[in-house]
């Protein structure tokens, strides 16, 4: 079992109980998580190939071309897991630019679907490199909105160190669990704002034998292992 496997399961857990919604994972580990959830405890999830088809493990089960996704977004029947170049304590997310918008130090990809996702349906994030550069006091450009700006629901943030949620009275970010072998202090140090830390922080659950077998079947070339920074 590796930390990447733990991350896959933590991502899968984000979709637990969602029923029949479109799961839209971005990136290798969130995609494996969504497929694992579908293969085990969330069999109702709809998985897009990102282009035009709804997929199950052995092939195509439906047709949903890209532009139809906007209708699903507006209806709320979707749960997306996006990346975040920056995120703050309320879950405001930035993928557009680092620095001043008019003359950025780095022009990133653009707001993409974040403004519509975060106001219409549940959103989670996956951050492979938990650091103070990503977890910041204030993001440089709000693309996905957080709880202080009217987000529908920011479910969880899964990182290479921990799982975070917003289960506090003020919807500020809280440490839900640390991955096996990670100290709470390491997460605090890697976060650029004050995290809510419960008295007792559980360890993120490890994959079961049968989950590991499914993950290996879904990702035989172990692409997931190259997604996290080397320790």
């Amino acid at each position, binding site marked *: 079992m590796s930390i990447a496997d733990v991350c896959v399961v933590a991502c899968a857990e984000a979709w637990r109980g969602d029923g029949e919604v479109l799961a839209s994972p971005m990136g290798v580990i969130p995609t494996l998580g969504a497929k694992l959830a579908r293969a085990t405890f969330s069999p109702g999830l709809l998985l897009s190939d990102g*282009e*035009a088809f709804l997929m199950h493990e052995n092939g195509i089960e439906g047709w949903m071309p890209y*532009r139809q996704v906007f209708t699903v977004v507006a209806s709320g029947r979707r749960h997306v897991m996006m990346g975040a170049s920056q995120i703050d304590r309320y879950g405001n997310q930035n993928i557009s630019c680092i620095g001043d918008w008019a003359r950025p130090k780095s022009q990133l990809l*653009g*707001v993409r679907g*974040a403004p519509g996702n975060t106001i219409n349906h549940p959103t989670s994030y996956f951050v492979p490199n938990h650091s103070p550069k990503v977890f910041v006091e204030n993001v440089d450009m709000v693309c996905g909105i957080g709880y202080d700006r009217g987000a529908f629901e920011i479910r969880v943030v899964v990182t290479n160190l921990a799982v975070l949620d917003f289960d506090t009275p003020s919807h500020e970010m809280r440490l839900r669990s640390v991955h096996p072998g990670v100290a709470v202090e390491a997460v605090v140090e890697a976060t650029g704002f004050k995290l809510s830390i419960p008295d007792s922080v559980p360890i993120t659950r490890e994959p079961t034998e049968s989950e590991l077998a499914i993950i290996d079947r879904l990702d035989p070339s172990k692409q997931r292992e190259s997604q996290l920074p080397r320790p």
Partner: protein
Amino acid sequence: MAELVGLAEGIAALVHDGDTVSLEGFTHLIPVAAGHEIIRQRRRDLTLARMTPDIVYDQMIGAGCARRLIFAWGGNPGVGSLHRLRDAVENDWPAPLEIEEHSHAGMANRYTAGASGLPFAVLRGYTGTDLVRHTSSLATVTCPFTGEVLTAVPALNPDVAVIHAQRADRKGNVQLWGLAGVQKEAVLAAKRCLVTVEEIVEELDARPNAVVLPSWVITAVAVVPGGAKPSYAQGYYDRDNLYYRRWDAISRDRDTFTGWLADELGS
């Protein structure tokens, strides 16, 4: 009624300096050959619009064709950043590039409003984001029935839309199928449009999920086999994934890019 033209002739007639131009396509059917012809003809001061700009816009921006970009996501799909886009925004090379940033749904809705002859579109989105501060082409609107405050985005009516499709008939009716983005909306919203196609056929037989654009909404059709490469045309050829990875290395460096431009496009 669409006219059958050569690609160079079509671009010369329809795309002018200073125009707002949309080359639309989503992963599939990207009008790359037409973009290259715009570079060869050295168009300048274009406002480029596209929901998801990828490497053809990177090439046009690096070649100095663009003054402004209207977009929701700009990247080299599956690879990373667009380095020419970044160099233009961050360092004004080869020229300053203004950006007008919207969400995906915002872009799609802007074309839909334009295609419908409506002045604006309404959506739930943008509220609370910093787009409200940076993007002047959006506003709030209050629903007259429920009182809900929503976002309004203005219609996008390009001077020219350029798309690539699988085929057309001799009258200039166009048919495309497989993964479609907002090509239909962009064509219907635009004042003029050019469609490049893989081939002309005698008759357009039915295809599942096909988009058919009748001749009377199209200005010109040009036959350009392979016109979407390195993207793909379903039923004709596959995506050249290696090219997208190679583009990352070519586009990172100004000299390498300039060399590519001279070698590939004589520009």
